[in-house]
């Protein structure tokens, strides 16, 4: 591996004193926010499932940070990724730990402004900021980063972060269902496999890869079970389910699966007792758009579920939540090449990321939304976009047209990585929910 002594391409000189100070203040607020968010979630649903306790613990980064640190001591490698296109199965097969390193800290995004302009996606700015002051434990602990060149922000984010860590880039084609796209992506998967093998020193063999695939399949199974439970009257608050999904990004996957299954057992019991988390006639809302990353960017789900009238999130189309796990790797024959093909196809073709286009536009995303609306009985869609997220913003009209034809109200909510507009957002969300309740009453 190349030494990191080269000159910094992007990073400005910041005095260590300033870094320390900023780190201290932001870490303290971050801790406060985690506690506060969990407290709020408990308040909304006083009768919260007991199994959520585990996820609260994992949501507080310190526990998992300690574990990863211990694993690193034993020689395990940690591989961070920024988009969910990174093939987790390969990382697991090489006995490394995959963690997603996107940042949800509002305060850190202001630091990112020193390097990139304000117009850039705040999630990218926040990740840069988090790195500048070493805020995110997972970003700090990862030995290398996989940067998938999806949107413009992500493309440059990898480049900027390469000032600190080795970054492996993966080119993703913008059209997914042509033969040449798949060929390119398969080659990328093979290359990244080689890189992972070189870093970890473990050769990825068929047996390990098979068990890694089975591990994620089991996780998908648990995830799908949870989603099925959300189809009926609300048995779990949307934020709780989102937190469960989100912890998958950094938790130990085997344990995560176990705990999620336990949560589902508890929820099934509640369904039989008709013990609902909120009144069954609460408007059912789906979120779509830019990813929302724990802990800070929890504003919208909190507002929806704490609003008056209350709404409940029963489904979403966020790459930080449901899209993480919705699609399993479907292997036809358990040979190495077919497993790699299956992985390549699962990550490229099943994705509904707006960075793709085709003759029919991003048809898959529309179909996903329509399917969710029908199966999860969605009454309203909140289209969440953070300023600077061009791709999601530009697809809005398309989604709106389809939703209009189906008679499902869509609400475009644009915001920033900031707490300042909470009051205003509250009014907007409440108006939307009021409208939904009125529609239900009619």
């Amino acid at each position, binding site marked *: 591996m190349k030494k990191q002594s080269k000159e910094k391409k992007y990073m400005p000189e910041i005095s260590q004193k300033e870094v320390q100070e900023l780190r201290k203040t932001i870490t303290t607020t971050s801790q406060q926010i985690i506690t506060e968010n969990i407290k709020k979630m408990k308040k909304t649903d006083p009768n919260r499932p007991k199994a959520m306790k585990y996820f609260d613990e994992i949501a507080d980064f310190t526990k998992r940070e300690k574990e990863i640190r211990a694993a690193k001591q034993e020689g395990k490698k940690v591989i961070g990724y920024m988009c969910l296109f990174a093939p987790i199965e390969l990382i697991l097969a090489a006995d490394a730990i995959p963690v997603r390193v996107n940042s949800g800290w509002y305060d850190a995004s202001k630091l990112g402004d020193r390097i990139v302009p304000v117009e850039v996606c705040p999630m990218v700015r926040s990740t840069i900021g988090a790195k500048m002051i070493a805020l995110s434990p997972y970003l700090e602990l990862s030995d290398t980063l996989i940067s998938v060149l999806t949107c413009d922000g992500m493309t440059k984010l990898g480049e900027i972060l390469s000032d600190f860590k080795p970054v492996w880039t993966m080119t993703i084609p913008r059209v*997914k*269902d042509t033969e040449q796209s*798949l060929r390119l992506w398969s080659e990328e998967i093979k290359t990244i496999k080689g890189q992972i093998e070189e870093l970890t020193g473990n050769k990825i063999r*068929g047996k390990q890869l098979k068990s890694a695939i089975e591990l994620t*399949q*089991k996780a*998908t*199974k648990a995830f*799908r*079970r949870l989603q099925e439970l959300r189809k009926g009257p609300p048995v779990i608050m949307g934020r709780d389910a989102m937190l469960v999904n989100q912890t998958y990004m950094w938790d130990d996957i085997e344990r995560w699966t176990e705990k999620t299954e336990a949560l589902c057992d508890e929820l099934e019991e509640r369904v039989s007792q008709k013990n609902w988390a909120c009144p069954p006639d609460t408007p059912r809302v789906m979120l779509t758009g830019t990813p929302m990353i724990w802990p800070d960017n929890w504003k919208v789900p909190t507002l929806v579920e704490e609003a008056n009238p209350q709404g409940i999130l029963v489904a979403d189309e966020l790459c930080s939540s449901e899209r993480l796990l*919705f*699609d*399993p790797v*479907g292997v*036809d*024959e*358990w*040979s*190495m*090449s*077919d497993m790699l*093909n*299956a992985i390549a*196809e*699962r990550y490229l*073709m*099943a994705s*509904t990321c707006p960075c793709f286009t085709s003759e029919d536009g991003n*048809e*898959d995303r529309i*179909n*996903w939304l*329509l*399917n969710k609306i*029908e199966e999860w009985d969605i009454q309203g869609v909140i289209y969440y976009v953070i300023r600077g997220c061009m791709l999601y913003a530009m697809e809005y009209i398309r989604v709106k047209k389809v939703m209009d034809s189906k008679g499902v109200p869509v609400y475009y909510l644009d915001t920033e990585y900031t707490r300042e507009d909470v009051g205003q957002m509250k009014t907007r969300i409440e108006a939307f929910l009021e409208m939904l309740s009125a529609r239900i009453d009619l």
Partner: protein
Amino acid sequence: MMELIGEMLKLTVLAGLTLAGILVILIWKKGLATKVTYLRFLVQVVSMVAVFYLFTYPVWQLIILIVIFILPLLLGRFFCGWICPFALIMDAITLIRKTVKVRYRLLPDKLNKFLHNFRYVLFLVFLIIPFLLFLFDPPSSFDTSFLLAMLLSGPFEPLRILVGPLIPLIVPWEGPLAISGVYFSYPYVQEVILYSEVVFSEFIVNIIAWIFVGLTFVGSFFLRRVWCRFCPTGASIAVLNRFKGFKWAPMLHIDKDEEKCTKCGICKRVCPVQVTEVYEQKAGKITTSMCTLCTRCVEMCPYQDCLKVKMGGKTVFRSRNWLEPSTIE
């Protein structure tokens, strides 16, 4: 002679039942009752035995031809996917390939489509040749029974070629290979011998026959269901399906739900005959005659209810969240 046939019958039944028994035990033990692939194997083995019995009837060719031509009207190429003994041989070779973990090859889509259309050429050639022979060498009388006999057993035996893939490994007549009184055969081998005998000596004929067997073995080792891609027998329904007004024809077909599909591409990858329509077509009835209805795609599709096998409007089998165990309807 009859005793010998009786002995052979017993042997085949025994072998068939043992195989079926082993499969049942395997399925039961592994809890794989939901896996259609295993069920299909079972059906194939049992139908191979059934085909053997059919061959012992004097009018077997007629019965089988009726089955080949009438069944597809109702079931599409279900026959090809689930009953045909040649398909069983190819699937068995695929199974061997899977255990030695060799990756299969793919034909380019264009070549695959060309082969698919080439079957009609084969089909027509075999049907037209006997009529051409009529023209060159007109028979003295034209009564129908003579015509029928001519078609079935004329110099080129055109319809036997269509029955070709149905030849089970053990045949109740004098097959080309005899081991201790049991006659073995292989799809098309008798026809290959029949035609090459005209030109070559017995020794070379045998070599040609073995080369044919070897080629199909190697072919189906590297390509899944290689013969199904251009088998002229499979054309019977395909011809009808091409005409408007006959689109209803296969009552059994695969149906796709657009909204549930995420275009993950699994259906395209697992298809043994490389049908792309299931993936490419947005929704509705999959009418391509390339599909042998083996239902591998339905089995592997990970989205509940996205793909369905429908029999006359009623769903017989549907794709399911295979991460969860569920039952066949």
